[in-house]
């Protein structure tokens, strides 16, 4: 395996059992993420994007297939310390301040005690919440909660960032700023896997896209190949052409 491969997924299948019925939530998913890439996980509702993310993070078990982070099959604590995760819309405890929440995440991420305050300050400045660092989260708007959500994910300077719908809840200005932060991380050599419904955002910032529907990968490749190689005018047109009505 290439040493620059951050994540390798091979023939990954996840089956749900609901009483007598079994449903294949993920069906032979295979792709790789390389260092310094942003990969967009696109698909209609119920396609399996969140299931894939939850499986990668160990929240769901899989029986078939392989997942390797940084060349290792074992999802150890050392591996997890290199990963940041931003869930879709998390409501952080209203009785805590952003500084306290980030302090907690810093400690459980295994960061050194003396480096946490400086990292918190820098991260809050990055997501523009530094002025509100000592305000209780209960006074936060939805957009501010999302920025805090992003802050906890990038706090420990992870090598791989997994983001589930990072643009939901953000206004247009917030989206532009979030895009700037994420592409900035890519420029620093970080790797990003993000799921999104926002095709225009994906087109603007992703290097590659993975379109999944009903648990199967329908397309995986560079954005440039779609727009230039396949002659599509936009990612949205291509998405609709291969997804159809999504049923």
């Amino acid at each position, binding site marked *: 395996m290439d040493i620059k491969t951050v994540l390798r997924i091979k023939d990954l299948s996840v089956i749900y059992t609901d009483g007598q019925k079994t449903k294949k939530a993920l069906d032979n998913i295979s792709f790789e993420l390389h260092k310094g890439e942003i990969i967009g996980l696109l698909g209609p509702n119920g396609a399996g994007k969140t299931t894939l993310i939850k499986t990668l993070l160990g929240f769901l078990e899989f029986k078939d297939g392989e997942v390797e982070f940084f060349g290792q099959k074992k999802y150890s604590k050392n591996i997890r310390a290199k990963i940041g995760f931003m*869930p879709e819309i998390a409501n952080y405890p209203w009785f805590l301040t952003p500084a306290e929440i980030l302090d907690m995440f810093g400690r459980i991420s295994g960061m050194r005690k003396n480096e946490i305050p400086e990292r918190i300050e820098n991260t809050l400045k990055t997501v523009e919440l530094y002025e509100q660092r000592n305000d209780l989260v209960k006074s936060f708007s939805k957009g501010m909660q999302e920025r805090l959500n992003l802050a906890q994910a990038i706090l420990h300077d992870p090598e791989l960032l997994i983001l589930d719908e990072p643009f939901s809840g953000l206004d247009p200005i917030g989206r532009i700023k979030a895009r700037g932060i994420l592409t900035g991380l890519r420029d620093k050599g970080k790797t990003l896997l993000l799921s999104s419904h926002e095709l225009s955002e994906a087109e603007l910032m992703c290097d590659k896209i993975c379109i999944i529907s009903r648990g199967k990968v329908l397309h995986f490749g560079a954005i440039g190949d779609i727009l230039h190689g396949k002659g599509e005018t936009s990612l949205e047109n291509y998405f609709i052409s291969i997804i159809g009505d999504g049923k």
Partner: protein
Amino acid sequence: MNAVTTIAKGVLKELIRRKDFYLILALLVCLVLFASSVSFGGEKGFQRYFKEVGITLSYIFSVIISATFGSRQVPQEIESKTIYPILARPVSRFEFITGKFFGVWIVSILSFTAYYSVFVLVLWLRGDRMTPVPLIAEGYYLHCLLLGIITAFTVFLSMALSAAANSVIVMILYFSTNWFGLTFPAYIVWPHPELFDIKEKIIHTQDIVPFWAMAFLTVYAVFYISIFLMSSLAVFKKKIL
């Protein structure tokens, strides 16, 4: 260990910032002051009555804190989705559950300490010098152990129940087993909260509990705490998040 203490500290901050603890403390102070202002049966009669009211209230209110805090920790984290970024970190499910348990137990002990202190202080101010301090301390220690069992059981139930249903069930079980006792076969397997209740000894200023009995009750509590915590972990490990 760092993850366990960090998660436990989060629960402690919840106690400090929420109003529950302060409201209950204010209510307890009012009730204790009211109880202390009533006069009947002479000084001895009053002290017995006051001890009964004060200890009962501090027991009940601390159990309420344990049940309400313990029941909402895990469901709240799942509902708000904050459990995902926590468990995506180098934090095992065992550390998460253990951290929540210790956090709620510490919170319950701190609340009980405050409530019990109000009772002991007013008792002392009313001139009681007869009740041995070691007996009051034993009452405190044994109830802290019981709070550990209740917390562990509440955390276990929170794997499957909503916070409201969980709190109600824990309170019903506490009152029914403590006041009405248990019948076979529950008598054999279920923990006995009445063993940790030495209220009668304190009310009637009896001898202190011997060391061997205190040691036995400590082991007894640790046994049940371990059983409930291990059961919680077994369920939580299989839980689809």
